[in-house]
């Protein structure tokens, strides 16, 4: 391991990091063709995209806000992937966290603001953690494929959301007026995320997300728990040999991963402009696919929590810019979803080329820590097979 690290120095690492960027460029190239076919000007579209994402302080704020759930989810994904668990359940975990946080805010309207905000954020963490712990435990103790169980739990979460927001948690005003829009009442002001710089739209969400990323970095590389997570991911057998409980570690990794997504969900609700939880009947309507896009942000960031910060910001810009593009050239917003899919495909497909450039083990099953880890390595700890 240590020698591999030194050998790799021969090739500058940034070349490898250009690969996902190239993948995005290719995806956008296809997007340009699609725009052309739709009778819109790609150049005008992409100009609007850039301007909408990064062209003004308002645009940058919008991008930061869009990047926030991606960063939370991406950090969570990083933790799960390090333990070699593929968490596709970010969408459901976001919804679960948001639902629990919203339910608490509705149930305890009289809490003072000082207590309220931390309470609902913790509720978000707990809701997401629970939704992540279930597939973790199913994988660890019943050998159930986590890709399937997390997808199924996404479906369950969205139905739960629809049921709660159309029934028990609906705004009483909606019932009185008979409009029955599936949304909660305006939540307690004490739970609003405090705004940064006075007036604007920017709340503390992005800041919390960056702190979470730093926290995850410390957890993964500076604590015994993080060491166990990475050990299990690199070689379950070696980890077991070293006396690590593989099953418990998998459950913990999925729980932490879910907790991050749950926090993302809570931040979405309490940082929203309307300060209510709303459903349009679909998961995407609430999450904006952040549960999936966070995975891509994490891959972009080389499954490293700190690199996931700029990666999320870039990806957030892409999404905000996409909306600006769609408005500028007047194409249906479904185009953004299609482009989003293309970006996912190309980034994921390019991942292996990136790893090849880094001369690292190539399958996610055996991802090595991406920027060089501190001295201790798993093989040292595991003592060999």
């Amino acid at each position, binding site marked *: 391991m240590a020698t591999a690290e030194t050998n790799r120095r021969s090739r500058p690492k940034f070349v490898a990091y250009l690969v996902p960027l190239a993948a995005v460029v290719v995806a956008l190239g296809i997007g340009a063709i699609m725009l052309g076919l*739709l009778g819109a000007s790609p150049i005008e579209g992409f100009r609007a995209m850039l301007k909408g994402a990064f062209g003004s302080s308002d645009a940058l704020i919008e991008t930061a806000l869009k990047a926030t759930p991606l960063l939370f989810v991406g950090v969570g994904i990083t933790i799960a992937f390090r333990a070699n668990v*593929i968490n*596709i359940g970010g969408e459901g975990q976001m919804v679960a966290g948001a639902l629990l946080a919203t339910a608490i805010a509705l149930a305890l309207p009289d809490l003072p603001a000082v207590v309220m905000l931390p309470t609902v954020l913790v509720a978000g963490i707990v809701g997401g953690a629970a939704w992540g712990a279930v597939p973790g435990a*199913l994988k660890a103790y*019943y*050998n*159930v*494929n986590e*890709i*399937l*169980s997390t*997808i*199924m*739990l996404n*479906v*369950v979460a969205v*139905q*739960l959301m*629809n*049921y709660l927001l*159309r*029934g028990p948690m609906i705004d009483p005003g909606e019932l009185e007026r008979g409009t029955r829009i599936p949304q909660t009442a305006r939540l307690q002001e004490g739970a609003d995320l405090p705004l940064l710089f006075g007036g604007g739209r920017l709340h503390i969400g992005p800041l919390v997300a960056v702190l979470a990323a730093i926290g995850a970095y410390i957890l993964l590389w500076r604590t015994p728990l993080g060491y166990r997570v990475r050990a299990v991911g690199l070689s379950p057998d070696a980890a077991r040999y070293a006396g690590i409980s593989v099953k418990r570690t998998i459950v913990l990794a999925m729980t932490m991963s879910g907790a991050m997504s749950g926090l993302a969900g809570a931040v979405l609700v309490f940082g929203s402009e309307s300060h209510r939880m709303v459903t349009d009947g*679909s998961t995407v309507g609430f999450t904006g*696919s952040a549960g*999936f896009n966070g*995975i*891509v942000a994490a*891959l972009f960031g080389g499954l490293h929590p700190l690199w996931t910060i700029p990666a999320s910001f870039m990806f957030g810009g892409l999404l905000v810019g996409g909306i600006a593009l769609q408005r500028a050239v007047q*194409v*249906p917003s*479904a*185009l*953004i*979803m*299609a*482009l*989003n*899919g*293309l*970006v*996912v*495909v*190309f980034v*994921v*497909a*390019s*991942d*292996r080329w990136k790893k090849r450039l880094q001369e690292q083990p*190539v*399958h*996610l*099953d055996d991802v090595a820590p991406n920027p060089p880890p501190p001295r201790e390595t798993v093989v040292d700890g595991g003592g060999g097979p």
Partner: protein
Amino acid sequence: MNEFFTQAILIATVASGIRLAVPLLLASLGETFGQRSGVLNLGVDGIMLLGAFGGYYTVLKTDSVWLGLLTGIGIGIILGLVSAVISVTLKAEQGISGIGIYLFGLGMSDLLFQKLVGTPRPVSSFPKLDIPGLSDIPILGEMLFQHSMIVYVAFGLVPVSMYIINRTTFGMNIRAVGENPEAADSLGVSVVRTRYLTVTIGGTLAGIAGAALAIDLGIFQQNLTNAQGFIAIALVYFGAWRPAGVMGGALLYGFVNSLVLQFKTLGIIPRSWSDIAAMAPAIITILALVLVARRFRQPAALTKPFTRGA
């Protein structure tokens, strides 16, 4: 509850369960081929959605359900090939790349619908085909033999798939490549070609499944499949990678869905509970996965890309 236990309603419930199972059955039979060869294609739902739109649009323009199905097949072949390039040649992480295909299909089908159709217009559905003789059997005939052609085709594909997987050289190659690609490769079986074929078969059947769904309903709308493609993938696990098991799972799904629909129509389930009832399939799937994971083992090379000499 009593009004449910009348002969007419029971027959209708079973018959509609069989009908509802068809898209799931087609898609999961296709996915079975891919998974037996070691490739998990998570993009089924996206392929189904595009197949559904293609099928719907063709019927809208030509008024021929058969041309509609053909369009579904064409779209399925193309997207199956694309999926194969992504997961076999580019060796992308299969758990995630399929999500990209799903999002692409979800967005693209909606985009095309808005651009080319706009307001939903119903199209003609499959003609009913009563099997002579058999359809006259009391009760059973009404349940099983008064369906449209696509229903018979879908269920007919079950023994065909069993035969291909278990009794042909191609099927043996599929299984070998899914269990031990290195060994298969050393014996001269092309892992790449086998997987390209199975993933393309999977895409084709997903495309047909989507077209069948849209034409059967006679409509298209955004997210028409409502995650059925994902359920179809889970059904492959549910059926322990065997066509007959997959069929059992698809039928169970069809019946659960048709029961829920029937209960809602009869007012046995209150309307406010319909969202809760809609959770049933996913929860049943999770429970089934627990049971199956205890007794069956997945193909050893599932989700693992093959690199010679690695």
